């Protein structure tokens, strides 16, 4: 079986679901003939036709609203925001309509749609192309916010997202789109949503993260291991609804938690995890919860962006602080 990258896994999942479910349509800017600016939809229009792979005009608000309209009629649209920095005009349709359609109609109409967006920094892109703004969605009931961190999880979680009967925001860490390949059988097997993945077992400290930072966090765990510190690594994967149990179970064991994300610290989603710990795991904690995050500034243009993002060093240092504290 061929090895594929994360972005190829996205394409594979889209193609699979379009093949088995004629109600799945893909829409967005440049998703058709061009196959998407990152090639996530490469080849789909050839295979499934322009009626199902729709090159839209340049209108994020309407791409988002159209998605609601299509989904309300029983289609399963997968909309693309070309970059997450352009998702703001999509917000109203997501927050006020997609997330509420089931609720507003007491279940008569639903919104089984997916909004995909390349997410995060680190690819030397222009302004507004490096946003980590998952916070926009995590306080909105009725949504799922999902972020894969490997080719396999991209495939399995995207299938799950498309099949989910409710709207899903699917954020793709573009920095690792092509970082490495792995075998991902095109078997149509979805992974569960609403579940955190424990990527590495450990006993001294729990490192919790999602998206692109999974890579740095795993490397940090390696570095810690080299110093005799055993770190458990959790990929949150579905931010909301959050599977806090898996995190709690780990912290029960380790007593220490470092949360890593690239969005600004204040009111980033790491805050929710720390808050849950402060409410439900306070007697398990033997050290202050640490957050290794983007700073409370805008991600700078690319010359400085790597200094903005969490790094292996920063994660290791934070983990050691939790060990020094107790």
């Amino acid at each position, binding site marked *: 079986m061929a090895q594929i990258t994360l972005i190829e896994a996205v394409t594979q999942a889209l193609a699979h679901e379009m093949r088995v479910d004629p109600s799945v349509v893909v829409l967005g800017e440049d998703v058709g003939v061009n196959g998407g600016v990152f090639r996530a939809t490469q080849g789909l229009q050839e295979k499934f036709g322009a009626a199902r792979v*729709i090159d839209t*005009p340049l209108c994020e608000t309407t791409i988002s609203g159209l998605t609601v*309209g299509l989904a*309300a*009629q029983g289609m399963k649209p997968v909309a693309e925001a070309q970059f997450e920095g352009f998702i703001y005009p999509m917000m*109203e349709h997501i927050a006020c309509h997609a997330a509420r359609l089931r609720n507003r*109609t*007491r279940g008569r109409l639903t919104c089984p749609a997916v909004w995909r967006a390349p997410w995060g920094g680190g690819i030397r892109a222009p302004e507004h192309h490096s946003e980590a703004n998952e916070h926009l969605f995590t306080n909105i009931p009725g949504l799922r916010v999902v972020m894969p961190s490997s080719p396999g999880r991209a495939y399995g979680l995207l299938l799950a997202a498309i099949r989910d009967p409710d709207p899903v925001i699917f954020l793709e860490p573009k920095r690792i789109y092509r970082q490495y390949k792995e075998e991902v059988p095109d078997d149509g097997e979805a992974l569960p949503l*609403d579940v955190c993945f424990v990527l590495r077992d450990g006993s001294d400290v729990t490192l919790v993260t999602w998206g692109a930072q999974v890579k740095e966090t795993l490397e940090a765990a390696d570095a810690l291991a080299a110093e005799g510190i055993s770190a458990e690594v959790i990929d949150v994967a579905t931010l909301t609804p959050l599977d806090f149990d898996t995190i709690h179970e780990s912290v029960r064991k380790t007593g220490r938690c470092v949360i890593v994300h690239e969005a600004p610290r204040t009111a980033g989603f790491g805050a929710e995890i720390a808050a849950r710990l402060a409410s439900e795991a306070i007697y398990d904690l033997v050290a202050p919860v640490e957050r290794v995050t983007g700073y409370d500034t805008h991600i700078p243009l690319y010359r400085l962006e790597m200094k903005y993002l969490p790094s292996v060093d920063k994660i290791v240092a934070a983990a050691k602080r939790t060990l020094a504290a107790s």
Partner: protein
Amino acid sequence: MPERVIKTFDVKRLEILDESGTADESLMPPIEEGDIRRIYELMTLSRIFDERALSLQREGRIGTYPSILGQEAAQVGSAFALEKTDWVFPSFRETGMYVTMGYPLHLLFQYWAGDERGVVSPEGLNIVPVSVSVGTHIPHAVGAAMAARYRRDRIAVVAYFGDGGTSKGDFHEGFNFAGVFRPPVVFICQNNQWAISVPRSAQTGAKTLAQKGIAAGLECLQVDGNDLIAMRTAMDYAIKRARHGHGGMVIEAVTYRLSDHTTADDARRYRPDDEVKAAWEREPVRRMKAYLASLNAWTDEEEDAWKAECAKRIDAEVNAYLETKSQPVTAMFDYTYADVPADLAAQRAEAIAADKAAH
């Protein structure tokens, strides 16, 4: 600066019944007398519902309510052209459309009294919930029309919105999209001259709202929205076009909001009495009645009997509404997702306990 003309656009207007209810016979479409009577009845019923809603609001039995006074022809005339299989995307001021489509009217009271169940169309009727966020339903309607186009459903999708709605980005983007893909969507702009306190002239520099279709390459037409015959005629045409794959169309129905914006508003703060008085001269119900009278198709006895019938029907709807029990506290949890996630189930239990404790 010398230039050459490369393109010319006309904006046309349709009006058939004049203010006194006299029809321009040369423009009169073939239309059965029964239909005309039926339409007049629906207009009257709408007006009586509207009056009752206002008094229920004054009594504190429903919340904020937007009256449709003066817009009955625009709404009944347009909705009369629809089939039950069509999909309607209303704004929040379409009581006349609901009445015409045969929506259970007690549900409307329930909705304006803060109960989600009031806006759920019964199976067999395809009206999506009221769009309170002005204009946001326009792209939804285009999306629904795209779904119909994809499935080759022989339906039309209709979106209602106001003069204020034409200033929103959603309006423009939705129109533009419809102009590119030409799905079966009909846009009905009820230009009632006001968006709360902002008059039509301050809403846009365009001379007509119909001409906004030009920007999207959509066919557009201005109609006397207080002229029921013209509304119906224009709408029949637009719906037929849509159903036959000729794409979207914009109808600007020129009408007037005779009442306050909603029961939370006081229009005397911002608009002159004479304007309102003049608008009453053009209101649609009296005009239609005059026309019916001129056909000898409607007597004073019929009028009285029908009004009594309306009052009875609305009474029954009010009672049905008043007898509806509130939803339990769990109702706020059970439609958030298809299944209640674990953490939310815990909150649901909290809410049940808090509710019990409070009683």
